[in-house]
């Protein structure tokens, strides 16, 4: 049902778990309305119908881990007026970027009996390392409310309202007890961008940083606090080197703890 005036939406997958694009299908109350407002030109998880580009908006999930994917993202960029990355893989390399800190040949040998069958790059890299990106939506996974906001904003040609402040602000709004101060639970909330709804502290656990760094993260100060609470340096490295390992502020914090030695 292509029409002249309806914007074309493409949803594309790279190395990922499929969860961020599932967030769109998880908009149970809005899905049919969204589908009524756009032409879904490509969205393999949902439809076997495809249309040619160009796309008004491309949503890109996943990171680049193969040579052919590095080429494919260039082709998608060339066809897309607006390119939005969705989630930690597309924005910061994702959990699979842990390979960047290791020997991939060794990784392949651990997982596969015949490493020679496997074609992969030594690194997992965010989309912005390969092509210009118009907006990066954070999260592992993204929040579906934020996804709808960003989609409406770009389709309506206005700026999206996605706060970049810390999880702490959201915690206060939600009325959560501070797990760091009240319970001494290590928490990345002070340095992590809001968007999840501060769910970990609401469930009495520390934030583990799945939305990546907030806009002015003071990781040095937080690391001092984490160490006071008994976290070893390797543990500090691990907590920053998980789902957003390539986000610069988290990467620096992880590297710095690692450089200071493996002394507990």
């Amino acid at each position, binding site marked *: 049902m292509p029409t002249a005036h309806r914007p074309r939406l493409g949803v594309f997958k790279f190395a990922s778990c499929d969860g961020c694009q599932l967030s769109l299908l*998880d908009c149970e109350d809005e899905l049919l309305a969204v*589908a009524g407002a756009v032409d879904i030109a490509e969205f393999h998880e949902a439809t076997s119908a495809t249309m040619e580009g160009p796309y008004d908006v491309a949503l890109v999930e996943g990171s680049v881990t193969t040579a052919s994917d590095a080429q494919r993202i260039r082709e998608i960029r060339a066809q897309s007026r607006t390119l939005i990355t969705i989630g930690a893989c597309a924005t910061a390399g994702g959990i*699979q970027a842990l390979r960047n800190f290791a020997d991939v040949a060794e990784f392949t040998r651990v997982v596969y009996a015949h490493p020679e069958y496997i074609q992969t790059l030594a690194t997992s890299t965010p989309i912005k390392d390969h092509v210009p990106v118009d907006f990066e939506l954070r999260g592992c996974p993204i929040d579906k409310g934020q996804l709808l906001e960003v989609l409406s904003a770009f389709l309506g040609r206005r700026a999206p309202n996605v706060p970049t402040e810390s999880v702490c602000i959201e915690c206060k709004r939600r009325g959560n007890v501070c797990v760091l101060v009240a319970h001494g639970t290590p928490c990345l909330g002070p340095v992590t961008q809001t968007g999840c709804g501060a769910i970990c502290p609401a469930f009495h656990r520390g934030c583990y940083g799945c939305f990546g760094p907030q806009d002015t993260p003071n990781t040095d100060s937080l690391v001092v606090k984490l160490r006071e609470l008994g976290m070893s340096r390797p543990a500090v490295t691990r907590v920053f080197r998980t789902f957003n390992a390539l986000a610069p502020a988290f990467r620096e914090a992880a590297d710095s703890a690692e450089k200071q030695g493996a002394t507990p």
Partner: protein
Amino acid sequence: MTERTISVNYLARVEGEGALKVRIHDRKVEDVELRIFEPPRFFEAFLRGREYSEAPDITARICGICPVAYQMSSAHAMERALGMTVGGPIRELRRLLYCGEWIESHALHIYLLHAPDFLGYPDAIRLAADHPDAVKRGLELKKAGNAIMRLLGGREIHPINARVGGFYRCPSREELESLRPMVERALVLSEETARFVSGFAFPDIEEPYEFVSLRHPSEYPMNEGDIVSSRGLRIPQDRFEDAFEEVHVPHSNALHAIRKGGGSYLVGPLARYALNYDRLSPGAKAIAKEVGLPPVVSNPYRSIVVRAVEMVYACEETLRIIDQYRPPDQPWVPAPAVTRPVDGAAATEAPRGMLFHKYRIEPPGRITDARIVAPTSQNQKRIEDDLRSLVTRSLDLDQAALTFACERAIRNHDPCISCATHFLELDLVRD
């Protein structure tokens, strides 16, 4: 002799990236290769060196469609390694979380991925134009499953509340009770779903499956039970590797699992249902009977009806858990210190089949070895066998019809290639 190639660039409505190649020579199917080219992500490798407590959150990221399955298999494996027993209300809440994932995942597959094949649409959105009530029913069911996961896990995708030993925070009775109206409604909608999908036209096919699933002494299996098969296998979960092996074939980034000394086998709803029909709830049995579903279903197309029956079961099980729930004194069972190297293995029932995890943990708590066998990896060889039989009996179809038939046959098993993908490139070579 001419060689013909048909390419479908993308197989849609599955999770993951793959391709299919079928070679036909003198009207004989020579080769069927389900090629998975979803890029490898190396979870088993980078789990080495991480703390055992991190495994539930990290392995959840293997699959956005069934994160709970990964959290459950990893948590149980760690608990087994550490000699922990988790019972009472925490055990019940784990079943509840799994019920949410089964309802969500089955509703997604039935309405958004599978039903369009039977009704002749490319997707649920176009299906909704002609069958709005059906698609709205599917979305409402999906939302109910997600609501259970959200209440118990904080969010639908990669829930944050599950941990080794139990949960970070257990809900109050009142919180669980708030789910009741939605789940009561979901139960009615699941029954309507079973009636709706049982009216589809099913090709008259039976496949000689060896079904494999868990079997528990009294429950329809989710988190516990022995591994059993329809050909008489019965082993405890930690002996999985005695009976099954994975082989690495050149055409796939997923490993193929087979029975040792045997061939392919099938995990998932058809297997669970055939091996545990007697453990279904009364309402689930009643709806199966009403829609004419026998206790063993070997027609892969009718898996859509079995999924609907499992949704009825999951709704009834959810209501039972809500009725009987009393919050535990502690939300989790504390783990003992790791003083020597220990091994632990566990299998649980993901929506699309049995998921096996095995770990070695060394002091002070570091993972030194990890092995994960996903349901789609186990079904991959069996899907190839389905395709071989389909193509063999369908040689007179034209290329387009045969190609579509192959895609449908793959979607019957709800493959998850991220634990799988969305695109399968189909190469049909006839010479």
